[in-house]
């Protein structure tokens, strides 16, 4: 499987995502420069964390108009998996691939620490190797991670089970105290109804190896690989049928 990691000026988690895809998960990985319009035949795209364009104007607001983003949107609309982490989530929202916005943290502080998140949706192609209710120990590092959407959008997300992760205690309870940024309903990550786009504030690429204190983030990469293998197997079966 080939991962493409988009590099904007100011991205700073691009190498971490590359490292996990290539050296930990053992897959092919390439960097995609934001000015390029060539996705180089990748099977999944990661919009990494960082401060694209210095977070000028609003986090993600300028990055979404980068030349590569037109191709990323096209890729996502045709069913390709797109994972936006932290600043990548902000870019997905600005690009309209997911609904809502990320406001300044309620505390006004930049929050950089390990948190727990509860897996709410295992249908998305990023969470199929996880189980519902599983608790992941995972770091966050952001100043604008306070997920907000109007009431109707939130109701819609909840009704359609599109909330993928929620900030929780280590026992899986959803409390205000364990919410690091003030997000509505403790939302830490959401997906699209087509299940191929995931935006999340926590950083799975920073916790995919024991040496880093947690490998709970690896399951997201493994889910993608599992999805790829099953879709590749389906494609091979289809081809076989055609040959017969």
């Amino acid at each position, binding site marked *: 499987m080939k991962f493409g990691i988009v590099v904007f000026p100011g991205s700073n988690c691009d190498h971490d995502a590359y490292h996990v895809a290539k050296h930990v998960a053992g897959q092919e990985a390439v960097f995609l420069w934001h000015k390029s319009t060539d996705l180089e035949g990748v099977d999944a795209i990661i919009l990494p964390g960082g401060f694209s364009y210095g977070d000028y*104007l*609003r986090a993600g*607001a*300028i990055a979404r*108009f980068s030349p590569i983003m037109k191709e990323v949107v096209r890729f996502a609309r045709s069913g390709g998996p797109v994972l936006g982490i932290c600043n990548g989530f902000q870019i997905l*929202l*600005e690009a309209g691939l997911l*609904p*809502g*916005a990320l*406001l*300044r*943290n*309620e*505390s*006004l502080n930049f929050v950089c620490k390990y948190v727990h998140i509860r897996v709410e949706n295992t249908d998305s192609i990023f969470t199929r190797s996880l189980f519902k209710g599983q608790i992941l120990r995972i770091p966050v590092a952001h100043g604008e991670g306070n997920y*907000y*959407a*109007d009431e109707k959008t939130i109701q819609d997300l909840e009704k359609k089970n599109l909330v993928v992760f929620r900030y929780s205690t280590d026992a899986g309870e959803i409390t205000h105290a364990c919410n690091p940024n*003030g997000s509505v309903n403790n939302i830490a990550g959401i997906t699209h109804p087509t299940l191929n786009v995931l935006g999340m504030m926590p950083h799975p690429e920073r916790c995919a190896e024991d040496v880093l204190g947690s490998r709970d983030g690896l399951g997201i990469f493994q889910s993608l690989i599992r999805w790829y293998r099953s879709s590749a197997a389906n494609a091979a079966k289809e081809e076989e049928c055609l040959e017969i």
Partner: protein
Amino acid sequence: MPVFTARIIVTLRSSILDPEGAAIEHALHELAFSACTDVRVGKYVTMNVEAESEENARIIVDQACRKLLANQVMEDFTFTLEKAHHEPA
């Protein structure tokens, strides 16, 4: 072509809690400015716009705000226009 100066103010929608505004209001009250309430913080953008008429300049600025300068999920914008004092060389 005439040049107009746009002064744009972008603020969080009134329905959204503005923690920065709330912190400033708290500080104002600590300083005995208790008459000051409903503090909101926003962004101020100025730019010059070349357009045939003020009406055209208004359309351009409105579109720029909708497309880039404000995120209407969470922000509102207002702007004023006036003839620029110094036309660009």
